[in-house]
């Protein structure tokens, strides 16, 4: 029987029952008239004897077993009528709830998109990344092939182990019309099958030989869907064709499905070639290239068990490393760590930040719900008579509670709709505020998880906000409320105290959010004022991608860099232009140098090829000596510049870093030792918070083909231009010059140095902005709640105020009466809130910079802000109380 038929039948049966009862009544009346009563008397007596018709109908209908649904429909209709009758109340409740639900929904969407993103692999929760951890730095170092061989032989936790390594330098795929920059990765032959993904065209590498032998079919490549689409317009006959990557020929043997990427995330279209091992892989030393290892857990193994096994295994392997000169090598590969692959894709910092923000949005939601509970309590008090009437007419406790819950659900549902709309708008708007490097994908699409979370949140909100009013309504006795002249509406002292406690709770939670917001804002402020050691204004940056393969055998510096620089210099408005391998605080590309010290230990330093003109752009401060100048050419004495951190480590005089000037340094090429000519004062290179790492700078004109540093230096470069003109005007001109120099370079990304600095704040800026919004909303809601409660109290006590005035109380004392109540609530809230804020501060500790988590100034400031806003909000009802006219107050009843 369909639902519709059932409903129609139900309506028919209801009418039938009404007819039946009516006919009974008629017969009773007829009998009484037959026995001599007057028609009026008969009717009255018969009805009295019959009883409560609607109640009898209800009870009878309940035996049909379908009453539940009908009552809910009734309640919904009644609730809608109530809302229409008091639209102001309904709108303020819906608005407040929408803020809370919207904030929580928005944060949950972001968390879902970033942390819970499904990976394009089969059973991705069984995929783990296995890394080797250095005992010195705690960070991962690549896995040498020989170690991986041992793992393949000895480990028991994995069903399949695969490996990959990125191709050095930039790769360019020659497409139909232009060269496409691609991300090239060499992968083990079983990588695709480990991930459980099959190509959509052709085959994968499983048939290629593994290990040190090359394939017999020559070099082969598998394209990603994006590469196939962008370079070859999705040519269906691509399999078997020969393509050129960096001037080398490869045969295409397959194409992977769209959305597939390894390693994740794919910044440019990817191509994969089989991993071939070379002679560097045959031994273990500082130069052995590292591999990234991804594995699928065996049935029955868990991440924890695999982690434990690999730790022990790797420690044994490291113990068997060669000693002597390479004694530090085993420290760098001391232990292993197994993590779920998904967990490695998000930086821990970002993960913690997002979870903390989710918690903050939860606090905002709680504040909104408590506020609405307060409002509903007030409303419930006003409806005492109505509820008592229902009880007298036969409504049971369950029915009354159900009515309150349905009202709560209706309000909460509408608030959820509004809140979702707000959340979607907010997410879309803040997409531009999220820095690129966080890889936060805020494309707006709802999935089942988010919808489910939203429904759950709506239900929870309804329950939380209407449970208490419902419980109170059910418990209140019927008779006193119905008595004439009794308290028709209003609450006793007890309820007032409850509501005050709720307001104090809101104040406490708001204080927590405001303090967190304040701490983060101070962190950003401190970060902005850290002296960087160089200028950042009016500098335009281009991240160049260089097709090094085009210049094989030629000196790129002479043939590409220098001419380009001269042309850029000649542009109108350019004050200076220069190259630097990576701008400070940039994240594009850096080269690490490993130096062997005299005592056998090794140390690392960053290598930075720069052009001499860079000093005119950035204005680096020198501690000693000089920077490069035009006199340092390919034929003059080779020189390097180091920074203070390097000098402190390697200076001949341990207490004077400047003494390193003049000492001889490493060979720039055969038989040409460099001399240190200058020491840079410290600058912030990687992040604003961390102090500088050791750095060595070469002058670009001095890097010739014979130099060992030529190759890594010419893979990628940043072009920095100091100019007064607006970027929008300069960028097209520079892009033109780039295109003339080499067509691939036209796709360079441009930014300004100021923007690079902004982006380096990373997630702290995002968190600060979000907390500003949450904190502000919390403040509004809490203060609004305070105002609402006080306005209510004043209205209730109008009569009492009138009596006081009539008895001679001054206006000021009435004002004070109300303000005093407000003051107590605020102080209690602030006291509890301070405790909460201290606890929350501990969670934030790792995130702050330059300000302690218990910073008294921030707490005092936030408390003062709350207190003043609260008192201002309390002033309005207080003024109303003071202005009570005793004549009017005492007359009205």
């Amino acid at each position, binding site marked *: 029987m369909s639902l519709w038929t059932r409903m129609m039948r139900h309506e028919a049966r209801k009418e*039938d*029952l009404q*007819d*039946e*009862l009516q*006919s*009974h009544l*008629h*017969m*009773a009346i*007829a009998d009484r008239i037959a*026995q*001599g*009563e007057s028609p009026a008397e008969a009717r009255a007596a018969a009805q009295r*004897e*019959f*009883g*409560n018709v609607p*109640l*009898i109908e209800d*009870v*009878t209908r*309940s*035996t*049909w*077993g379908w009453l539940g649904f009908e009552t809910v429909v009734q309640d919904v209709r009644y609730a809608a009528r109530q809302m229409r009758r008091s639209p102001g109340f309904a709108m303020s409740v819906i608005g407040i709830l929408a803020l809370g639900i919207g904030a929580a929904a928005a944060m949950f969407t972001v968390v879902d998109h970033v942390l819970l993103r499904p990976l394009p692999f089969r059973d991705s929760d069984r995929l783990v990344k296995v890394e080797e951890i250095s005992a010195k730095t705690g960070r991962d170092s690549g896995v040498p092939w020989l170690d991986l061989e041992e793992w393949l032989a000895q480990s028991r936790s994995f069903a399949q182990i695969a490996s990959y390594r990125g191709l050095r330098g930039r790769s360019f795929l020659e497409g139909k019309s232009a060269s496409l920059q691609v991300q090239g990765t060499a992968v083990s032959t079983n990588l695709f099958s480990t991930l459980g993904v099959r190509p959509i065209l052709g085959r994968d590498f499983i048939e290629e030989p593994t290990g040190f032998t090359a394939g017999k079919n020559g070099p082969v490549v598998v394209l990603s869907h994006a590469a196939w689409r962008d370079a070859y317009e999705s040519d269906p006959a691509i399999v078997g064709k020969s393509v050129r990557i960096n001037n080398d020929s490869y045969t295409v043997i397959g194409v992977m499905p769209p959305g597939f990427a390894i390693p994740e995330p794919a910044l440019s279209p990817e191509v994969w070639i089989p991993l071939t091992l070379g002679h560097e892989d045959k031994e273990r030393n500082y130069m052995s290239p590292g591999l990234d290892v991804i594995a699928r857990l065996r049935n029955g193994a868990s991440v924890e068990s695999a982690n434990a096994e690999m730790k022990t295994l790797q420690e044994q392997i490291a113990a068997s490393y060669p000693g002597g000169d390479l004694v530090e090598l085993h420290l760098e590969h001391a232990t292993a760590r197994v993590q779920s692959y998904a967990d490695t894709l998000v930086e821990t910092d970002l993960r913690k930040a997002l979870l903390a923000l989710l918690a903050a949005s939860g606090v905002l939601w709680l504040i909104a719900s408590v506020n609405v509970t307060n409002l509903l309590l007030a409303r419930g008090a006003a409806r005492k008579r109505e509820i008592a009437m229902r009880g007298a007419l036969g409504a049971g406790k369950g029915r009354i509670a159900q009515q309150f819950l349905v009202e709560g659900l209706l309000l909460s549902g509408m608030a959820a709709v509004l809140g979702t709309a707000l959340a979607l708008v907010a997410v879309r708007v803040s997409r531009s505020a999220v820095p690129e490097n966080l890889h936060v994908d805020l494309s707006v699409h709802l999935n089942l998880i988010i919808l489910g979370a939203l429904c759950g949140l709506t239900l929870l909100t309804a329950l939380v906000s209407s449970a208490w009013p419902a419980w109170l309504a059910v418990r209140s006795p019927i008779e006193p409320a119905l008595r004439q002249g009794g308290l028709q509406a209003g609450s006793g002292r007890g309820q007032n105290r409850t509501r005050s406690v709720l307001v104090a709770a809101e104040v406490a939670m708001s204080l927590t959010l405001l303090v967190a917001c304040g701490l983060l804002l101070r962190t950003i402020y401190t970060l902005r004022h850290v002296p960087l050691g160089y200028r950042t204004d009016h500098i335009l940056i281009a991240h160049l991608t260089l097709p090094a393969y085009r210049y094989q055998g030629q000196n790129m510096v002479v043939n590409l860099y220098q001419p380009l620089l001269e042309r850029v210099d000649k542009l109108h408005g350019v004050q200076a232009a220069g190259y630097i391998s990576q701008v400070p605080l940039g994240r594009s590309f850096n080269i690490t140098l490993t130096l062997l010290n005299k005592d056998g230990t090794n140390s690392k330093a960053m290598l930075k090829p720069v052009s001499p003109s860079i000093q005119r752009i950035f204005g680096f401060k020198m501690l000693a000596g000089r920077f490069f100048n035009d006199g340092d050419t390919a034929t003059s004495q080779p020189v390097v510049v180091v920074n203070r951190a390097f000098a402190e480590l390697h200076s001949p005089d341990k207490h004077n870093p400047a003494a390193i000037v003049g000492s001889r340094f490493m060979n720039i090429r055969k038989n040409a030792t460099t001399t240190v000519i200058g020491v840079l004062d410290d600058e912030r290179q990687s992040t604003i918070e961390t102090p500088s790492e050791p750095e060595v700078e070469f002058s670009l004109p001095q890097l010739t083909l014979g130099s060992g540093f030529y190759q890594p230096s010419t893979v990628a470069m940043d072009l920095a231009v100091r100019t007064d003109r607006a970027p929008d005007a300069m960028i097209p001109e520079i892009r033109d010059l780039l295109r003339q120099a080499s067509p691939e370079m036209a796709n360079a990304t441009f930014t300004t140095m100021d923007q690079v600095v902004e982006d380096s704040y990373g997630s702290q800026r995002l968190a600060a902005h979000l907390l500003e919004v949450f904190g502000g909303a919390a403040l509004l809601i809490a203060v609004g709640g305070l105002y609402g409660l006080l306005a209510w109290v004043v209205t209730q006590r109008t009569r009492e105020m009138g009596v006081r005035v009539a008895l001679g109380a001054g206006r000021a004392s009435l004002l004070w009466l109300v303000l005093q109540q407000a003051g107590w609530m605020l102080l209690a809230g602030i006291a509890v809130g301070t405790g909460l804020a201290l606890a929350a501060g501990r969670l934030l500790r790792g995130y702050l910079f330059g300000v302690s988590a218990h910073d008294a100034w921030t707490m005092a400031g936030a408390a003062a802000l709350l207190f003043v806003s609260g008192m201002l909000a309390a002033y309005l009802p207080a003024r109303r109380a003071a202005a009570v006219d005793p004549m009017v107050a005492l007359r009205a009843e």
Partner: protein
Amino acid sequence: MTRAPEPYRNRIELLQGTLDMLILQTLERRPQHGYGIIQTLRARSAEILQVETGSLYPALHRLERQGWVDSAWGQTEQNQRAKFYRITANGGRQLALSRSKWDTMVTAIASILRPIPEN
């Protein structure tokens, strides 16, 4: 002649199962409408059993749902349209069952209340 107001003290609380049995017994004689059932029960119990409509109609609808009675609209002798209830075969069986249970119960209680014979 006006009827004396029904004295409250004559209302006897009837258990739900007992009421069902009485209704079925009444309907076994002949089909009746709700008003008629109330009148019959009053008359036959000498005014002691005065079933309220609030108990009767839920009971009737419950009996109908359990299949022991069924209903149909008809006309009374006074040409009043009314819903008549009629016992079914299942209802008859249920009535016999209830009666035998009642008899057992009555005998048991009576034997406890019987004065103890002196010896």
